[in-house]
């Protein structure tokens, strides 16, 4: 395996030349949010026969390059992209081999199409990581070149960190006096957000919540601070809660026990926090979402299930990372593996994000609606 993570911005630039290819092409590997949604989408796109098939049919359906895109940066640079649907649906999560095959086949397709840098969206990167797909570098006659793929987690972590910094003050929360809880603190995104909040944001106290205790203790040592708490202990103390773990289906949050105001950033996948806790004084913001400066003419994102208010320009930050890397001609697996996200890499991708026309999703719209 070629190593993922250049340690500094300089190193990233060196890789730029190494992997520069003739065409400017980024890729997004996505999937529908449910089997039903996938069938509807297939019908819309004219894939009638597959749409009518049952889950077994979908389990054997190959990945499809469903759409070509064109994006123009604020800098004026235009790049091409492709959206690949892996034909995975969350109902396949319990079928380990199927899920694995879907991800690997979609990655193979991206590589065969000559795409320089492809983001693994939605469950794709989760499956890659949790099922340890690094062991499966050879797909049929193709050896996957890892440097062509990114999880997009660095951009997601930067966006979530910025969402904390921008939105807490909008609610009257002074971050220098605030306690911020990160639920899922030891994950790839969670640990990066903890690093940023500790070293860049200057919050009063970091509350760290995660399932496994040893990685938490290690992270605390790395950060030189922060308090390790259970979810139950952390929630009533936190002025800001960043969720980067998926919640157990049975979890109930008692809004009465939360600080008022409380900013909750839902950075998990899928996003399901809203319905559970939003209420008087508790503001839920979808985390890790960005908005592009202009409409992107894509149909795949116009999918109600993603719950984007402006699907023509809003997207997951992980997808946007592939776009940014292509704009920067930075053809490397920028986000890869676990706990490789440095502040320098967040700076790099954050600067690119702003330069090319992305902004973070913020509360403003929601606050105005509430005030009206």
């Amino acid at each position, binding site marked *: 395996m070629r190593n993922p993570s250049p340690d500094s911005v300089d190193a990233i630039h060196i890789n730029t030349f190494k992997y520069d290819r003739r065409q400017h092409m980024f890729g997004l590997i996505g999937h529908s949010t449910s089997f039903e949604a996938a069938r509807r989408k297939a019908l819309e*796109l*004219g*894939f*009638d*026969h*597959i749409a*009518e*098939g049952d889950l*077994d*049919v979908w*389990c*054997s*359906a*190959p*990945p*499809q*390059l*469903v759409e070509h895109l064109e994006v123009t940066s604020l800098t004026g640079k235009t790049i091409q992209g492709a959206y690949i649907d892996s034909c995975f649906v969350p109902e396949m*999560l*319990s079928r*380990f*081999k*199927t899920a694995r*095959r879907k991800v690997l*086949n979609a990655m193979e*397709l991206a590589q*065969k199409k000559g795409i320089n840098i492809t983001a693994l*969206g*939605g*469950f794709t*990167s*989760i499956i890659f*990581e*949790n*099922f*340890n797909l690094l*062991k*499966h570098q050879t797909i*049929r*006659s193709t050896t996957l070149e890892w440097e062509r793929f990114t*999880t*997009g*987690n660095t951009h*997601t972590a930067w966006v979530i960190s910025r969402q904390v910094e921008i939105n807490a003050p909008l609610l009257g929360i002074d971050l220098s006096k605030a306690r911020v809880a990160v639920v*899922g603190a030891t*994950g*790839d*995104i969670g640990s990066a957000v903890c690093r940023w909040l500790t070293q860049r944001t200057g919050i009063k106290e970091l509350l760290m919540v995660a*399932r496994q205790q040893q990685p938490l203790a290690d992270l605390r040592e790395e950060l030189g601070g922060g308090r390790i708490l259970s979810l139950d202990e952390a929630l009533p103390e936190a002025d800001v809660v960043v969720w*980067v*773990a*998926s919640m*157990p*289906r049975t979890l109930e949050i008692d809004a009465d026990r939360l600080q008022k105001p409380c900013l909750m950033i839902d*950075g*998990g*996948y899928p996003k399901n926090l809203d319905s559970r806790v939003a209420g008087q004084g508790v503001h839920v913001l979808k985390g890790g979402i960005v908005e592009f400066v202009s409409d992107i003419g894509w149909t795949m994102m116009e999918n109600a299930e993603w719950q984007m208010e402006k699907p023509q320009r809003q997207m*997951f930050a*992980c997808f946007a990372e592939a776009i940014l890397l292509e704009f920067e001609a930075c053809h490397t697996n920028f986000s890869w593996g*676990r706990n490789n996200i440095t502040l320098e890499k967040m700076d790099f991708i954050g600067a690119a994000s702003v330069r090319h026309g992305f902004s973070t999703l913020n509360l403003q719209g929601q606050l105005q609606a509430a005030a009206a």
Partner: protein
Amino acid sequence: MSTLDSTAVAVLDDQQGLAELPDFTTDAYKDAYSRINAIVIEGEQEAHDNYLSLGTLIPDQAEELARLAKMEMKHMKGFTACAKNLGVVADMPFANEFFAPLHGNFQSALKEGKVVSCLLIQALLIEAFAISAYHIYIPVADPFARKITEGVVKDEYTHLNYGQEWLKANFEASRDELMEANKANLPLIRSMLEQVAADASVLHMEKEDLIEDFLIAYQEALNEIGFSSRDIARMAAAALAI
């Protein structure tokens, strides 16, 4: 976005790892192998004969086609050795019957001088079927067969490529006949996959994998020839729907 429900992860963590090898010495394995191996041998024999026949329809390509046919014969011998190595006798009557419908369709097309249909059956369908099955077989094959199959796969890509290139060069003229031949023959491939599924599973080859990998190879070829992805999805649907 790296989160996943904890219980799901716990279950899945246990299943990580590469394909587990079957026990090649059991009666169950040898019994299943006697049919799978026979299919492979018969398939290579059919391929050999079909390429020679195609040479009569495209005389200026006869030499190249004879070369392909010769390779298929070499493969057939390799796979015969695989059965011998495991002490298995290939069930050739079963394989003959297995290939009969497709064989019949090829022969009718040949008689009518339909080059396009013949190429679709042999150079696209059978080759894509073989390539996908060999790829799935390789990680779970015994060491002897693994080596042989790895060598064969490389050759089969050239054969798929041959049909692809010819059809690409004659795409507009071939288009309608390709659609028609696909409709008549793809369901046969699907039912062949169904027939072989139980035996393949004994060899640790899953039906789901076989279908998807076949479709990937077939779609890739159709795409290369000039079909749009929507056309291909329609054409491939015949293999997915039972």
